[in-house]
């Protein structure tokens, strides 16, 4: 889901840079407000975790690959605003140091995976969890937050890919990403719904349960109301 350079027209990547910059500025303000000394190690580890988990490419045999992003579990443990900052750090380092995702597409990639994904995940979790949830309800909420969070990011990327032939063609030939919405959306959303988002959902559920066992007080999505 790391859009490379050359796939998006400037009409697409520039507005997404602006949108992302706005979210990032707000995120840094929120991180500053909520900063607690005991949580600082978690921040660095969240960005590192996000980087590492994305290295585990999962094959669809004979077809394509994808991977989990980790943004959903970071949103549940540290809150969606902290996730915006942590996931963005990982994505920006991937682009500059490892050429994974384009430099011109940093705004788009961060918008999809570091903004759309953590907020969708946090929202789905709160929605499914309800009031006074039991452990099973929490596990289900965590799975769905990862499952739908990553799928929402894939949908956002698919729309950005898919509108390119509409807005930037010359003499009937596309200038950038060549496939329209009718191809990009089923391909991107479909492959995530059947494989990659399930991995993200299971990962989100397992890591949340691990945290609830070991450091339940640190889990933002369950204790935020009481603060």
């Amino acid at each position, binding site marked *: 889901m790391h859009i490379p350079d050359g796939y998006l027209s400037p009409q697409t990547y520039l507005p997404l840079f602006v949108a992302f910059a706005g979210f990032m500025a707000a995120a840094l303000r929120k991180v500053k407000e909520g*900063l607690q000394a005991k949580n600082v190690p978690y921040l660095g580890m969240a960005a590192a975790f996000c980087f590492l988990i994305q290295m585990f490419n999962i094959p669809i045999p004979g077809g394509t690959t994808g991977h989990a992003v980790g943004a959903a579990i970071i949103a549940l443990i540290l809150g969606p605003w902290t996730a915006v900052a942590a996931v963005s750090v990982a994505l920006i380092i991937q682009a500059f140091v*490892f050429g994974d995702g384009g430099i011109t597409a940093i705004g788009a990639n961060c918008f999809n995976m570091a903004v759309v994904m953590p907020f969708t995940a946090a929202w789905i979790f709160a929605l499914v969890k309800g009031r006074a949830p039991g452990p099973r309800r929490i596990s289900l909420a965590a799975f769905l937050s990862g499952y739908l969070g990553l799928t929402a990011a894939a949908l956002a990327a698919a729309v950005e890919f898919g509108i390119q032939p509409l807005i930037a063609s010359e003499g009937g030939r596309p200038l950038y990403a060549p496939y329209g919405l009718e191809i990009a959306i089923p391909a991107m959303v479909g492959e995530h719904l059947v494989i990659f988002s399930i991995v993200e959902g299971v990962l989100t559920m397992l890591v949340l349960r691990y945290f609830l066992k070991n*450091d339940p007080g640190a889990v933002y999505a369950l204790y935020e109301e009481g603060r």
Partner: protein
Amino acid sequence: MSAFQKKLACVLLALAVLAPLGIYLPAKFNAGDAWGEWSAKKIGEMLGFVPAGLAKGEGVWKAPVPDYSLGGEDDTPARQALWYIASALIGAALCAGVFYGVSRLLAGKKR
């Protein structure tokens, strides 16, 4: 760091060491590129032409460690795995370091 946080750091280290699974399995199952992340050359084969803007895109940025390796595409699987682990360690350390630095800066401004 608390004992639990130290344990988590060890889990992250284990992830870095296991990372080559993320290149081994796709190669074993002949999985190809991620959707929308094809090289301009591959796009040319798929479409019969390379979109003009897309052709320019590839040269926009020269990453110091392209595709998590300095070994090139003909590298042996063992060397590819080692490059991948090295990239995992460097990338994870950079992520943790940058975010830690940013937190310190923000904390400094708070006082």
